[in-house]
């Protein structure tokens, strides 16, 4: 990728994954694994083929052997029911427009049957649904419906109250609500009857819900674990050298809290609260002790380590909110 320095946007088009035998063979993977694999295959095939996909600083990575277009052309367009699902974690109007236009361009169709939107900001920053942002994006979708480019629009993974709120407010009502497959047998009766009364389709999906970052298989948070180990080892060392039981206890306590935090981050990168809080306490306490005693070991070192950790978490959090997936 270093060959193309002018790239600002990168679109990965996996194409028709129904005809990827490697994926069919591994049926039973969850959609995140499936998507990761499809992306890997796409990048690999793209690298192997000599395709130049850069246009106006946009790089389109696709599979040369993709048969999506061929498959679509086998049918009359009127017989096809095309649906798009857009995952957003940013309420920029430009972004959703870009996603829809990219969808039309990829499929080479003038319009689609439905678009379902899954919008959720990062968990840490906003608990619950961000209704005003949602409405902001919704107005873009409504424009597309008015221009007859989309016939039905819907929402995925929103709380019932949010859905009702958007439904009451919207000019073009959502006609689809998508819920996670895992909950399809326990749909609240109030939502059931709301959908029935308003002719809303209550559909299922098996896409990752909540934080969209779960789509990516995150690497284990190795620095986090090393940091946890260092704090615990420091405590043990203090006990061994000076017989300090408080040192041992504090080392093991903070060490385990940090290890647990690192484990959480490895599972879900947006779940860094334990790690952040523990690091901050350590940085504070040890910083105070370093200020009083002037001792580099252990107070100064632990304080510095914790400071580095806090900066690292902050940088990662910022990165998370910028990532988008369409």
């Amino acid at each position, binding site marked *: 990728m270093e060959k193309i320095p002018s790239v600002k946007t990168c679109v990965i088009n996996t194409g028709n994954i*129904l*005809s990827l*035998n490697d994926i*069919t*063979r*591994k*049926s*039973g*993977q969850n*959609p995140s694994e*499936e998507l990761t694999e499809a992306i890997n295959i796409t990048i690999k095939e793209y690298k192997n083929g000599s395709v130049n996909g850069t246009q106006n600083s946009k790089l389109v990575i696709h599979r040369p052997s993709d048969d999506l277009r061929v498959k679509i052309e086998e049918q009359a367009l009127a017989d096809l*029911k095309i*649906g798009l699902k857009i995952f957003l974690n940013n309420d920029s109007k430009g972004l959703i427009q870009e996603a829809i236009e990219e969808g039309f361009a990829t499929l080479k169709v003038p319009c689609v049957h*439905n678009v379902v939107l899954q919008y959720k900001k990062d968990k840490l920053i906003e608990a619950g649904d961000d209704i005003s942002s949602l409405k902001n994006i919704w107005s873009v979708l409504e424009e597309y419906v008015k221009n007859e480019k989309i016939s*039905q629009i819907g929402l995925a993974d929103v709380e019932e109250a949010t859905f009702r709120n958007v439904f009451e407010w919207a000019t073009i009502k959502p*006609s*689809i609500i998508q*819920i996670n*497959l895992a909950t*399809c*047998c326990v*749909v609240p009766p109030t939502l059931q009857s709301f*959908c*029935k009364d308003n*002719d*809303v*389709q*209550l*559909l*299922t*999906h*098996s*896409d990752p819900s909540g934080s969209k970052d779960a789509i990516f298989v995150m690497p284990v948070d190795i620095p986090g674990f090393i940091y946890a180990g260092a704090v615990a080892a420091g405590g043990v060392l203090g006990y061994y050298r000076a017989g300090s039981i408080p040192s041992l206890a504090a080392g093991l306590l903070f060490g385990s809290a940090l290890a647990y935090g690192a484990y959480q981050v490895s599972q879900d990168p947006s779940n860094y609260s334990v790690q952040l809080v523990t690091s901050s306490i350590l940085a504070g306490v040890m910083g105070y002790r370093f200020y009083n005693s002037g001792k580099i070991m252990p107070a100064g070192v632990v304080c510095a380590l914790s400071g580095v950790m806090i900066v690292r978490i902050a940088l990662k959090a910022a990165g998370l909110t910028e990532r988008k997936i369409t």
Partner: protein
Amino acid sequence: MGLLTEGSPLSWEETKNLSEHVRQHGIVQFINLYKRLRDRQGDILKWGDEVEYIIVKFNDERKVARVSLRAQEILAELNKKELENPEGVKSLWRPEYGAYMIEGTPGKPYGGLLAHFNIVEANMKHRREEATQLLKSDECLMTLTSFPRLGTENFTDPPSKPTPNEGATRSLFFPDEAIFPGHPRFKTLSRNIRQRRGEKVAINLPIYRDRNTKIPVDDSYKHSPAALPDHVYMDAMGFGMGCCCLQLTFQACNIMEARTLYDQLTPLCPIMLALTAASPLHRGFVTDVDCRWNVISCSVDCRTKEERGLEPLQNDKFVIKKSRYDSIDSYLSPQGDKFNDVPLVYDPKVYQQLIDNDIDHLLAQHIAHLFIRDSVSLFSEKVHQNDEEDTDHFENIQSTNWQTMRFKPPPPNSTIGWRVEFRPCEVQITDFENAAIVCFVVLLTRVILSYNLDFLIPISRVDENMQNAQQRDACKEQKFWFRKEITTHISPPEANECCKIGTTNCEPQNCEVYTCMTVNEIVNGKEGEFPGLIPLINTYLSGMDVDADTHCTIQQYLKFIQRRASGEILTTASWLRKFVTEHPAYKFDSQVTEEINYDLLKTISAIQGGELACPELLGYSTMSKTKENIPSALSKNC
């Protein structure tokens, strides 16, 4: 059970003399309909199920259960609604072979929406209730593959006696009164099959050997030379055609898709037979097999001694390997061609006639092979037909070839397209189970077409699987030939070669395309080797717009099938066997006594009605979200 032409049946002698006439005109009729309909396109997926029921009568005082011979009476009532309003009824009812049987289908076929999966069970429930309303309080409508004491003394109500020396069947056990009297077809078939064969049909099922089991099983061997002493011997068409099954018909979008589905579902027939096994009890005995298949196969085996290869050919034309009720003998799609490793018997003149009329090799040999059979039921009114329009002679032969799959051309002057019928499944006790199986198979067809999957293995291996599938506890114990690499039609050349050469030297290690798998591995997958049918269905569904209730229902069905396949819960056959052999009155003698039979059927009646939970058979979650109609938000968008 096939074509129900009304009229006056001809005697066997007359039918036999006209058999060449029927064949000749049947072939011409097929050629004409093929020319008319070969290019028919654009039909949409429609499908339907057929469930067969038995009417059981309980006598609670004497603790006995019999089959009630009131089907004709009840059917007349059931059909009234249809006559008044043929388009508006929710269910259709048809006669079946037994005078104690009825067959029910949905009033209209289901369509291509996924939401249709959610109305199947509700419709089955509706059918059960509709027919049950017409029963007396001591009668019960049951979906039993085989009535456990069929053919024992006084198994019917009202009582009837077998007539070994006269009548249509001449059985030692099965009276003619137990054959549906409302239509001449059934008795005529029984008589003609017996007369064509030159003797009574013979069914011998190995007895399940328990510690007090007596050998010989009974004194049948004294009365009939065909009876094997250590087998349960049966001698009537009714033992087979008196069984109930669960069948499915799909409409394909065109003839090619129908041929693909016919082929791709063929290797699944034995697997589904093993998974749905439900008939270990026959003529009051516990047998050592779990399925009805061979019983029916033998019960309508009209082949003469010459045709069976027991005597040199003098009067007959061919030695024929199978009964007219058996697994299919050849694939129909181009990719199936290389797996047609069983030599097909047919009249070369008939084959040539089809080829000369622009019918391709695969279809021509299939039709010619079906037409090696004689008509076994002919009506005087239907002898002379207009071959340009009628298809009765073609249907006459086609509908008496009862095979695992049936390839069905569109009927004349109708809106119906090319169809495929899936026929191996045994019927289960509850509507939940039957709906689960039906939805599973229909979902498989969608997955096969969407992913372009290829399940084909040599036809001889499918035949082997059919026999293994019927073994006791086959679902858990047996291994089946199954294709490993299902994702592509391109198989390694050496594998193709290997499969072409033949069946004897084709060990799994030499042959890359298929291997041995258990039902569990086929259904649930095998790590690193085979994805599994249910994971494939789930992947397919994750890409579809499925409404919440339907998806909930489908998940219940799929989980149930997964548990059956994995052995976590029992197959119907294993459960029936267990019930009998653990019954306090069981004497370890392989006998299903009146008392055990009564208790068994009472228990089944409570399970099907939902009054009794049976987790070892059904698991713990048997509540689907099935409903009568499709929500309007969904039906609008099709």
